[in-house]
């Protein structure tokens, strides 16, 4: 479905990003795996190359404008174009209430989840305009529509991310660029596993609140993102797609 398409995945070396990179590669795409930790990205890339795919690893921190610009340039120089961007890099913040949140933690959370998302689209979209279109999928969060204890900065940042997604969708729809996001619910990623169990809802309690009664795999989030990026979703834009096993509907 993505034969010879050039795809960029940020936060592409673990969790949802790595799962999506593998699916894109399996479907014929040339994939750039971008993340801060180059060694982990290279491992994902080697795996895709071993399976016969074309892939590169790029070291980039999406919060840094110069690095984002260089990242997108490297994709275009290597593959000649950029058809799909999966802007997936995220940061949970410091898992505190807003009173306890430090300015540094607040800034890091917003710099990655909001400014980073804006910067990625800021540099990806001009190339897509030049080539006549493209598809962007952002990773938002269920916390863009509800919240969870001690996730103030993250909740606020992901609400902002949804706003950025629909604004981008509106501005660039006439130029054949579709922009959507996935809003993952509880997903078994390093990010979820890295949350402090003393401060957060235990996984078993979380499971009982989810109508489908289970935590998702990263692959299930990736499948939704890949589908949104595909031509099968050619009339879908401005959608923040909840992929949460029904968690949001069950509020009391």
């Amino acid at each position: 479905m993505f034969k010879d398409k050039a795809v960029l995945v940020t936060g592409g070396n673990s969790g949802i990003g790595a799962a999506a990179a593998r699916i894109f590669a399996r479907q014929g795409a040339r994939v750039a795996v971008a993340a801060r930790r180059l060694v982990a990205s290279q491992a994902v890339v080697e795996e895709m190359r071993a399976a016969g795919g074309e892939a590169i690893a790029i070291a980039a921190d999406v919060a840094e404008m110069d690095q984002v610009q260089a990242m997108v340039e490297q994709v275009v120089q290597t593959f000649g174009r950029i058809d799909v961007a999966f802007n997936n890099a995220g940061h949970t913040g410091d898992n505190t209430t807003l009173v306890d949140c430090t300015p540094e933690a607040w800034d890091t959370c917003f710099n990655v989840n909001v400014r980073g998302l804006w910067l990625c689209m800021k540099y990806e979209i001009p190339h897509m305009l030049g080539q006549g279109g493209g598809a962007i999928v952002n990773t938002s969060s269920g916390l863009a529509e509800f919240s969870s204890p001690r996730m103030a900065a993250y909740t606020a940042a992901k609400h902002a991310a949804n706003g950025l997604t629909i604004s981008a969708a509106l501005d660039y729809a006439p130029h054949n660029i579709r922009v959507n996001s996935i809003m993952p619910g509880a997903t078994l990623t390093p990010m979820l596993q890295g949350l402090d169990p003393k401060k957060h809802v235990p996984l078993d309690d979380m499971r009982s609140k989810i109508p489908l009664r289970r935590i998702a795999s990263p692959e299930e989030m990736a499948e939704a993102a890949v589908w949104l990026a595909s031509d099968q979703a050619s009339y879908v834009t401005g959608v923040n797609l909840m992929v949460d096993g029904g968690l949001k509907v069950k509020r009391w």
Partner: protein
Amino acid sequence: MAGKLAGRSALITGGSHGIGRGIGEALAAEGADVFFCHLEPEADGEVAAQAMRAHGVRATALRLDISDPAAPDRLFAAAVAAHGKVDILVNNAAYIPPKTFLQMTDADFEKSMRVLLHVPYLLCRRFADAVIASRPAQPEDTLGNAGVILNIASASARNARADRPAYSAAKAGLVMLSKALAWELGPHGIRVISISPGVTRTKATAPFFDDPADERWRRMRAIIPLGRPGEPADFGHVAAFLASPEAAYITGLDFALDGGFSVY
């Protein structure tokens, strides 16, 4: 290539044209058998069924008026009798009296609620009962694919339309019914999703989409970011994805399929 829905059996209300037919053809293309009802001449239903059968699946059309009180039960029983089971239910049939609040009669309102809300409720109930009864005692399905309900709602559920108040209210009801069912049926492995079309090419709207000079189309184009109406095939693509195992963690949401209309 085996389709993503091979071995599945779908029931669609209003499947002879427009969105329902687009969904039927797409589900068939992914390997699902399709049973649908419609209110067109018999021959039109057969043409649509043949288009679905071209994908190598079983497809059966049944002409009936879904607003008839006995119709939902008759339809569900006929689908099970013909194809053995129903795994995917698509509530799509619509009734839209083109009347404002001050123009409509009580009968207009009641028929709108009947076709747009009561009939989907009844079919969801028959479907859930059948899916739950047919499965082994396994109260918490972990895959979320025992059954899938797709309810076709409308952008009118979120954005009021003065020219069709009963329709808007019923569609808003259908969106919330879907969410409530997603919650209750989730532990049984049944996913429930509403899909909300914006401006869509249907039998009623096609004439002015095909006329570039038509003022109504010019006005509508200006409010659709992607600049074109939704086509039946667009709904087919989305329904095939949402019904597939790839969407196994998606339930309880309202999917806006409107080319960006609802963000503008």
